[in-house]
């Protein structure tokens, strides 16, 4: 059976590949991603299951799923003109995608099947930093974190645990790591951006509060607090916290081995050991 060997959480700020290319691997951001990457490498993970919120690039309002599971064999990225990225085709995991799609449907979820997709920076920036050798297979699981109505935190927590059960029952020798992609407080393009930038962090205190909850393993408290209104108060992409909550559903009572916050960016980096 497949084995879950680690879980991590990272931001996907589209400017970070260019920033780290300019400032080098010893820059603050370069070192934070490296910390998480080293944790993944030591776990010997071969397949990443990434909870992510598309930024209206993979999907659009013509048909916007709350939950979507790809079953394609590969997908290109990035599809959104993110600078500083090495565009490529990523090997996906259609067999696991089918297992997750069937397993979640049998448990009462309503995931959409996605047989053809391209991926934006919200997937590809984490891949850029976590898998620079491009050796890993990927299964993104898309949760709508940007366009209300958002899924509830309670449902996303249960989803993460159900995905864990499905992975652990999957007849495969692969070692799997879970990834949460996203920020806790961030506004992009909306009225609460900074006065001199296209993005801003309207609620850094929320970012710190979420990070403290993660450090203490206070998942139940965090889920109770993470209403749609509270997450949206933290920015128009504040719903990306749902991806972290899904991973917490699988992580259970474990506390992170790595947890570093970038207060000014409204996000954190985390890694959990599975054993």
């Amino acid at each position, binding site marked *: 059976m497949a084995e879950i060997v680690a879980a991590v959480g990272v931001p996907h700020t589209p400017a970070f590949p260019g920033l780290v290319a300019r400032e080098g691997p010893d820059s603050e951001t370069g070192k934070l991603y490296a910390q998480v990457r080293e944790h993944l490498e030591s776990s010997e993970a071969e397949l990443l299951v990434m909870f992510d919120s598309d*930024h*209206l*690039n993979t999907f*659009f*309002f013509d048909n916007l799923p709350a939950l979507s599971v790809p079953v394609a064999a590969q997908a290109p990225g990035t*599809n*959104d*003109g993110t600078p500083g990225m090495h565009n490529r085709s990523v090997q996906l995991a259609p067999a696991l995608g089918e297992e997750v799609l069937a397993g979640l449907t049998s448990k009462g979820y309503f995931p959409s099947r996605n047989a053809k997709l*391209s991926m*934006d920076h919200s997937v590809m920036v984490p891949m850029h930093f976590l898998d620079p050798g491009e050796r890993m297979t990927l299964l993104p699981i898309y949760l709508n974190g*940007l*366009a209300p109505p958002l899924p509830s935190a309670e449902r996303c927590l249960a989803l993460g645990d159900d995905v864990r059960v499905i992975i652990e029952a999957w007849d495969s020798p692969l070692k799997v790591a879970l990834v949460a992609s996203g920020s806790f407080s961030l506004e*992009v*393009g*909306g*009225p609460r*951006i*900074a*006065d*001199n*930038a*296209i*993005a801003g962090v309207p609620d850094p205190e929320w970012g710190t509060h979420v990070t403290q909850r993660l450090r203490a393993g206070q998942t139940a408290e965090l889920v109770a607090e993470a209403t749609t209104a509270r997450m949206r108060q933290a920015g*128009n*992409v504040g719903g990306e916290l749902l991806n972290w909550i899904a991973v917490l559903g699988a992580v259970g009572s474990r506390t992170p081995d790595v947890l570093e916050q970038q207060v000014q960016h409204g996000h954190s980096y985390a890694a959990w050991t599975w054993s």
Partner: protein
Amino acid sequence: MSAYEIDLFNHNLSVDPGFRAGILANDETAWRSIPLTADERSALATPDIAWLYAHGANDFLLHNLFRFGVGGVTIQDYVSGIKRHLTEPG
């Protein structure tokens, strides 16, 4: 009038390099590929961020107008436009 077409325009700017190049070159075929009203087209071409936001455009997608430099919009123009409703009620 529908915000859907405005949002589709901003979505296509991000994911369709051919559309993006056409709009930046003011190519009529690109402009006509989405059924915009005259007011919508004018607001996107300028771009008039305050008008677009007031007429229901998705704020996240709006930032693609700045990201790709449609109409030469500056960060100052974008910020003042998206925040205008905060200082000008109604």
